[in-house]
């Protein structure tokens, strides 16, 4: 009889037993719903929650009490999200930069200049390379009229940017220099194309040029998005 009378109590205990993992999972979902938090921020906050839970458990509190206190200590997630938004820790816009690199790669294989029989961009770059290396006799003379120093500066930036951004994207000091470099590239390439269009009305430019310009503008925007005020950045995904 005694065993039969305890059975409903045991069932009730099992039903009301606190599931710490499920509670953390719910909290994590709540955290994921905050628009201003990057995955790295969420991971960091979750680590904090788990540390705090462990701290309370060590003091003898049960799972439920530990979780509730830790959650309380962390504070309201909406307020934290708002604070993160104010910080505006965007160093660059990753999806935009990825698109830019993709378009850049395509542009290298599209016809670039009418003056040299609409060669693809990569062929133009290779043909002019000996001039830059100090061997003027080896290159294609038809390309010398183009101010390739400026263009190659931008090309170098396009090629080096994935490495710079992926490795140093969160290093504020290096990113500051990268922003200056991007600004310099924007000014020089802008000047180059403006000059080109004023004098030749863009007649020499093939579709490769326009696609290349698009990729360059996108990359610059992705890097310089850091300079936008927070209210203009709210739709940009943080990385």
């Amino acid at each position, binding site marked *: 009889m005694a065993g039969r009378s305890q059975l409903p109590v045991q069932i009730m205990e099992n039903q009301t037993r606190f599931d710490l993992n499920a509670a953390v999972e719910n909290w994590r979902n709540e955290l994921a719903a905050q628009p201003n938090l990057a995955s*790295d*921020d969420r*991971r*960091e*906050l979750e*680590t*904090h929650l*788990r*540390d*705090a839970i462990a*701290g309370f458990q060590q003091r003898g509190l049960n799972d439920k009490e530990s979780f509730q206190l830790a959650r309380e*200590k*962390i*504070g*309201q*997630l909406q*307020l*934290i999200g708002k*604070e*993160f938004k*104010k*910080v*505006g*820790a965007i160093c660059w816009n990753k999806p935009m930069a990825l698109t830019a690199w993709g378009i850049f790669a395509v542009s290298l294989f599209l016809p670039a200049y009418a003056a040299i029989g609409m060669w693809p961009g990569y062929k133009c770059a290779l043909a002019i390379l000996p001039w830059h290396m100090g061997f003027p006799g080896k290159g294609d003379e038809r390309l010398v009229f183009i101010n390739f120093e400026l263009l190659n500066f931008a090309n170098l930036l396009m090629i080096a940017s994935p490495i710079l951004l992926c490795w140093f994207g*969160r*290093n*504020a*000091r290096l990113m*500051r220099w990268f922003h200056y470099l991007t600004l310099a590239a924007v000014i020089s390439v802008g000047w180059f194309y403006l000059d080109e269009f004023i004098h030749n009305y863009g007649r020499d430019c093939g579709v490769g040029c326009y696609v290349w310009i698009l990729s360059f503008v996108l990359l610059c925007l992705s890097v310089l998005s850091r300079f936008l005020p927070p209210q203009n950045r709210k739709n940009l995904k943080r990385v």
Partner: protein
Amino acid sequence: MLTKDLVAASSKPLLLSILAGGESYGYEIIQKVRELSGGQIEWSDGMLYPVLHRLERDGLIESEWKEADTGRERKYYFISSDGRKALKTERQQWLAAHNSLCKLWKIKPVSI
């Protein structure tokens, strides 16, 4: 308990000073501040991270995910050389304010 404004103003020198003593992570920093202030400075734990990220954005601290002894990965923060310079300036300014008040209240000031 310190007022909200004073807590906010002192967060930068506090964090830089803690990290000048060695790398640390969010939970440990919170515990340290609580212990140092004897409960006078109460930060909402979650609010610490935007402050840390702001210092990182400004180049005063740097961060790195590392595996702790417990096997759990944590984001460790450490002070940069710019951070050390900023801390020096902060120290001078806080001591200047502190000493002015000490003179007014006739308490022995500290050397800057």
